[in-house]
């Protein structure tokens, strides 16, 4: 089915067309959200919100970009919104805790285990994901789309509505930052001997 035809059917409220759209893009959207949020429940919630938004705003899709680009764009924006809200609520909870409110501070999941990572790479991937989480949001989005989703630089640029050169620069800087974070971790880990991944996550 052609993309425009699919969107037209979704606009007219055809569940079958929406199901087809979901079948094609669900894993892509979910994997992107999981890579950015690094929590299964949050990634599922974000994926739900993405598809709900797609269904409700299908009439605004003008076909200037591909359907895939549009969906990835919504997913990335949704994840960035969730991250911002989380940071804001953490800050607010911290202030509340200073004033003696009894609400618990939100604590991040100690380490993230992506289900798609090869078994022999699991431990290193956990350290890498912890470092990815500390990247500035644009670098994180570009890195996730490129490395986790396997989008090319130009596809990533389309999703992020920027130029290919800007994406190249973002990914270069992301790699530099990751290298720096990882070197800090491994330096401590070797010299300290006993320091663990959890200690690294706490420092971050």
């Amino acid at each position, binding site marked *: 089915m052609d993309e425009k035809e699919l969107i037209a059917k979704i606009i007219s409220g055809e569940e079958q067309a929406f199901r087809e759209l979901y079948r094609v893009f669900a894993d892509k959207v979910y994997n992107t959200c999981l890579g950015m949020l690094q929590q299964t429940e949050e990634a599922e919630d974000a994926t739900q919100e993405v598809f709900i938004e797609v269904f409700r705003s299908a009439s605004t899709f003008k076909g200037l970009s591909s359907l895939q680009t549009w969906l990835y764009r919504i997913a990335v924006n949704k994840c960035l919104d969730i991250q911002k809200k989380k940071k804001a609520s953490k800050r607010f909870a911290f202030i509340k805790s200073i004033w003696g409110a009894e609400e618990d501070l939100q604590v991040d999941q100690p380490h993230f285990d992506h289900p798609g990572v090869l078994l022999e790479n699991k431990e290193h991937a956990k350290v890498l994901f912890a470092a990815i989480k500390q990247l500035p949001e644009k670098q994180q989005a570009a890195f996730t789309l490129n490395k986790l989703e396997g989008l090319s630089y130009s596809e990533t640029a389309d999703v992020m509505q920027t130029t290919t050169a800007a994406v190249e620069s973002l990914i270069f800087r992301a790699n530099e930052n990751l290298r720096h974070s990882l070197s800090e971790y*491994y330096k401590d880990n070797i010299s300290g001997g006993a320091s663990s991944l959890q200690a690294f996550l706490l420092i971050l």
Partner: protein
Amino acid sequence: MKHFSDQNIEKALQSLNGMKRAEASPFLFGKILHKLSTQVPEPVYYSGKIILQFAMMIALIISLNFITLKSHKQIKQPEITDESAISQVAQEYFESDNLYIY
């Protein structure tokens, strides 16, 4: 030691190679349909108080601008009588006939 650390960094950076895409839960579509059928998009309401405050703020900004412009026009710039001022400066700096001796 450094070599060991570099090796680990490279291994960590390469750890995403060959990874598979995570799959969404099979129940997710059902949840989405349920949400779509139960959730009504929330209309955006602005209370009268907010609209009034906004209007007052705009009116205040406009009136302040107006007052500033009006008062700026009323301030008279001191007039410089060309002859007297210039001759005073000339007398102060060029007392001798030789222009290069100050």
